[in-house]
């Protein structure tokens, strides 16, 4: 199997080629660039699957392929010279993610045939070029073997989101949303880049894996107990880790940098599926998993990750409750679900976090594509209050969407239950010892109720009851390019949870924790990048309530109970023929939630109420004070010369007198300065 890794670069290069083809020749191609995109992502998927097989047979791949820049620099730890390189790292985590990304990208391409081509969109070459570049950037990011390469493709992912969110650039709202997405994530990336520079300057390497990695160097530095940049090593690792985390918060839309994501719904729904499930938003959390060893060295950073995650999970879930646009509900659910992943990783639940990342990729892609299908059915209507009764008219869409909804709500035995439960369990047992984590856990748990509620509110409003508009009564048919991806993802949403049945293992002892073994390197792995290795670095204590079995039962029971009650309330309120709007009964609380807690307002205020006036003030200062001084000098000299020219009397003797006087004065001055009179 070893030779298969020679083809690893092609995984990312295929979509890049598709990008170039779509951009250059898309106009003349039969499906405007869709075919090269489908072939390329299909090829990437095939190769990624081969990588997965290779890794399962015990092989891993870590190779530096290209030296981007090299030079002299002495790191704070004394390493001489530094090389910034491009390389590929394929270990269990990367192989898994490659398959997820290329699969979702492939299905999105196929779905686009029905969603974009069949709906008569213009600008399709640009669309497919964007998808290709997006897939390329994400795949290259996933198997990047060092932090700088990861940063570079992380940024390119941001560019692609800008291009695709702003796809309908002739509207006013799409360009604005695109700008916001790039700007808010750029703000996060600012900290990320400082982190990259700081880590490079500190350890002289940016490698993720091996003895030469910055993770290993950080561990050595902490063990040696030296000072780095004026801080003790532990603190410095925390600081740099938090800086990198800035990028994660931006891309993974965590509080307070989540505001771009709901606006990003301005892009085509297919793009939302790609962004939310497998590319941009996933990139942040994936990065935390990729350099988990570094975070494991710093309990403070981990606790912050967990707390931010738990808070975001709850915060976003409450906002999802009052949304009327089907895509908006899904947008807030994405923010909330990535909060869970952060919570999981923050409490040391590396497997749980990655597990949820995988399950979420499937069911969120499914839900977004399902929403896309609904939008086609509804003749491009997105308001759920105008839907209703689609259940019998579009059974494929309904049942696949339902599978995704059950997974999202965390209902046993759908995939989302297993991973969310594992996250909450991990948070619970750590929380028993650490009060901060307990708070994060409590927020995560509370979010389960809201998740159940908004998910089923969405399902009932969309599919159940009586049709509430003409479009809902007479839906537009959808073709197989739309249905087929839904079915594939629908099956995955049901069964993917089987990859890691941790509660079953803990209760019965049956070894059904395939993903845990996978990430722990029981097949193939790179030393130091395994679940076990991370576990040794973690400083967390865990507790139990009674026995481990009882703890498992309590954690799972609680989250199931909340999920069912949330879904139940939604059932009661909205699974009726003629649902009514309850929004008014929420009163002022509802106003605050509907305004998204004024998060947008204060960020817009920061941009337009603070920065812009400051810029204008700077401009006025520049025009008046600085340029005024420059012009003042010229005015003064013009004025002076105007006066001075009066001595040009035209009388030769006057000139002779001035000449002599001037000469004497000059001589005296020079003489005085030169020291002749001393």
């Amino acid at each position, binding site marked *: 199997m070893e030779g298969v890794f020679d083809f690893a670069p092609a995984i990312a290069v295929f979509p890049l080629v598709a990008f170039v083809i779509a951009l250059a020749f898309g106009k003349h191609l039969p499906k405007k660039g869709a075919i090269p995109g489908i072939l390329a992502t299909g090829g990437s998927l095939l190769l990624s699957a081969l990588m997965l097989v290779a890794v399962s047979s015990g092989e891993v791949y870590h190779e530096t392929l290209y*030296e981007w*820049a*090299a030079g002299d620099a002495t790191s704070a730890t004394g390493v001489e010279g530094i090389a910034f390189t491009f390389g590929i790292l394929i270990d269990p985590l990367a192989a898994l993610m490659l398959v997820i990304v290329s699969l979702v990208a492939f299905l999105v391409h196929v779905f686009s045939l029905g969603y974009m081509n069949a709906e008569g969109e213009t600008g399709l070459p640009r669309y497919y070029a964007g998808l290709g570049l997006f897939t390329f950037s994400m795949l290259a990011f996933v198997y990047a073997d060092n932090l700088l390469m990861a940063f570079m493709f992380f940024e390119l992912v941001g560019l692609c989101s800008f291009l695709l969110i702003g796809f309908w650039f002739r*509207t006013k709202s799409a*360009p604005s949303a695109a700008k916001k997405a790039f700007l808010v994530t750029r*703000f996060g990336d600012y900290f990320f880049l400082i982190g990259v*520079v700081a880590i490079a300057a500190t350890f002289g390497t940016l490698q993720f894996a091996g003895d030469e990695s910055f993770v290993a160097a950080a561990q050595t530095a902490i063990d040696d107990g030296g000072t780095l940049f004026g801080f003790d090593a532990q603190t410095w690792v925390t600081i740099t880790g938090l800086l990198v985390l800035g990028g994660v918060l931006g891309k993974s839309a965590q509080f307070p940098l989540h505001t771009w994501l709901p606006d990003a719904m301005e892009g085509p729904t297919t793009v939302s599926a790609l962004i939310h499930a497998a590319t941009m938003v996933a990139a942040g959390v994936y990065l935390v998993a990729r350099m988990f060893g570094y975070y494991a060295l710093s309990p403070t950073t981990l606790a912050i990750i967990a707390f931010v995650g738990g808070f975001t999970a709850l915060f976003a879930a409450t906002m999802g409750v009052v949304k009327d646009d089907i895509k908006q509900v899904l947008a807030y659910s994405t923010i909330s679900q990535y909060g869970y992943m952060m919570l999981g990783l923050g409490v040391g639940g590396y497997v749980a976090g990655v597990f949820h990342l995988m399950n979420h990729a499937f069911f969120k892609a499914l839900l977004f594509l399902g929403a896309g299908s609904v939008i086609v059915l509804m003749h491009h209507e997105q308001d759920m209050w105008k839907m209703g009764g689609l259940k019998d008219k579009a059974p494929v869409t309904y049942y696949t969407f339902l599978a995704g909804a059950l997974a999202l709500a965390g209902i046993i035995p759908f995939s989302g239950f297993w991973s969310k439960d594992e996250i909450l369990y991990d948070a619970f047992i750590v929380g028993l010892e650490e009060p901060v984590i307990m708070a994060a856990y409590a927020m995560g748990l509370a979010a389960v109720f809201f998740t159940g509620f908004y998910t089923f509110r969405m399902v009932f409003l969309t599919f159940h009851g009586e049709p509430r508009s003409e479009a809902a009564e007479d839906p537009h048919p959808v073709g197989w390019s739309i249905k087929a991806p839904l079915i594939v993802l629908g099956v995955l949403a049901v069964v993917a949870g089987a990859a890691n049945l941790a509660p079953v293992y803990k209760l019965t002892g049956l070894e059904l924790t395939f993903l845990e073994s996978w990430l722990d390197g029981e097949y193939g792995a790179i030393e130091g990048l395994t679940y076990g290795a991370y576990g040794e670095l973690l400083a967390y204590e865990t507790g139990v309530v009674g026995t481990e079995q009882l703890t498992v039962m309590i954690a799972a029971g609680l989250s199931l109970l909340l999920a069912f009650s949330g879904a139940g309330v939604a059932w009661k309120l909205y699974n009726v023929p003629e649902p009514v709007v309850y929004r008014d009964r929420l009163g002022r609380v509802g106003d605050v939630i509907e305004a998204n807690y004024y998060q947008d307002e204060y960020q817009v205020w920061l941009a337009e109420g603070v920065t812009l006036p400051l810029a204008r003030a700077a401009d006025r200062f520049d025009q008046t004070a600085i340029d005024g001084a420059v012009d003042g000098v010229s005015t003064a000299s013009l004025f002076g010369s105007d006066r001075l020219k009066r001595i040009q009397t035209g009388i030769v003797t006057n000139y002779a007198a001035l000449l002599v006087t001037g000469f004497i004065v000059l001589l005296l001055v020079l003489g005085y300065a030169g020291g002749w009179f001393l």
Partner: protein
Amino acid sequence: MMIEILIGVALIGAFATFLAPNRIAGKLAFAISLIPAGLSIWMFSAFDGSGNALLGGDLAFESQAAWITLGAYDITWFVGLDGSSLPLVVLTTILVTLAIVSSWTPIDDRESQFYGLVLFIEANLIGVFAALDFFLWFVFWEAVLIPMYLLIGIWGGPRRKYAAIKFFVYTNVASLLMFGAFIALVFGLGDSVTSFALPEITAAMAAGELGSFYGLGPTTLASAVFVAMFVGFAVKVPIVPFHTWLPDAHVEAPTPASVLLAGVLLKMGTYALLRFNFTMFPTEIIEPFVLPIAAIAVISVIYGAMLALAQTDLKRIVAYSSVSSMGYVILGLIAFTQFGIGGATFQMVSHGLISGLMFMAVGVIYNATHTRMVTDMSGMADRMPVAVGILIAGAFGYMGLPLMSGFAAEFYIFFGAFESTFLEYAPIFTALAMFGIVVVAGYLLFAMQRAVFGPYNLETDYEVGRAPLHDVAPMFVLLGLIIALGVAPELIFEMITDAVDPILDGGEL
């Protein structure tokens, strides 16, 4: 001989174009400019120099000839290239060729004079980067001003006289300051130097030959000269607070002049800072000024970006963003590390390409709409998709998007500055300056959102169609170079660091 051929072809070409009829001048100038461009690319591939031109390195394409003897000093025709100047020569020749092509559409008046002046600028710019005798260098340095003054003053916008005179007087006064300071330095070196050759002067400085002059002790003299030259060059760069001539000059200048102004003329200042201030002076002279210079660098970055944010004229936006970008160069230089100074030099080339591209793109939009105000237009992407596509690509290049040259330059500078031991509080200065990457994204995206996206609308009475090929082709060339340098920065970075290393070794860091 190669440098003489480059300069000679440009000079003779300038005269030939002057005499040519208006109708063929543009094509003729283009054809002539291909010769230096082609030759300099060949020189780039055949480059065999090593080390720093001022610090005893092996020069490439060196030639020397006695010229004038002035008292005890020999003035020589002394030219040659090292790894830091050759990329700038190549940048110059390529940008001139592209600027000529981009003039075909907008310039429709006195063409032969226009293109003649452009070629005349080219000759002098090559001279500035190649000359190694101070006197010779200064002749080229000053001679650049005249054609640029005329380009702005004759073919410029409504306030062209004001802008041209401001540009000329401001930079000329600065040159005078710098010239006087340098002559004082040479006198201070006394008998230890017998010519204006820069390597000789540098060697004498390094050997500690600087004596007293005019009542000033060696250290005071060196410090005073350092400051005076810094200010002199700072105007050219420009660095805050000496930057106010730049937006006026850019706004009034015709597009091709803006391309050369931002692309190459600003680099004269940063190149001279590198050549003189940061190569000739011992580090103990520079040391007291490290913190102020770093502060000025950070202020230039942030303040320049804030000014750009307040503008609604596309050209003013790009002009102010140059102030911001040049701030990074200063930060890289003062860091005194290989990546810092190397990155600063890389940024000179990269910014030359990217700002050139941006000015061309803005120019193409102006050609079609006859306005540059973002408030006057929206949805231009609808009518000129290719030109706007390139504008967007250029804007992302300006924002430092990875795999484009701007990222490589900025990353080197940030890394080089962060790890600097010469600069106190280096991480803090670096982190502050880096905030520029957020503001730059803010003003460029905001401007694009208003001007090129949204529903199509134009306040002026012009019919906007697709840009002609010869407007778009030069931008494609630049974009290709920007991406090439972003993917493979070692193409020139290796050469640059080779020239930078001796500076650091001499500095005992």
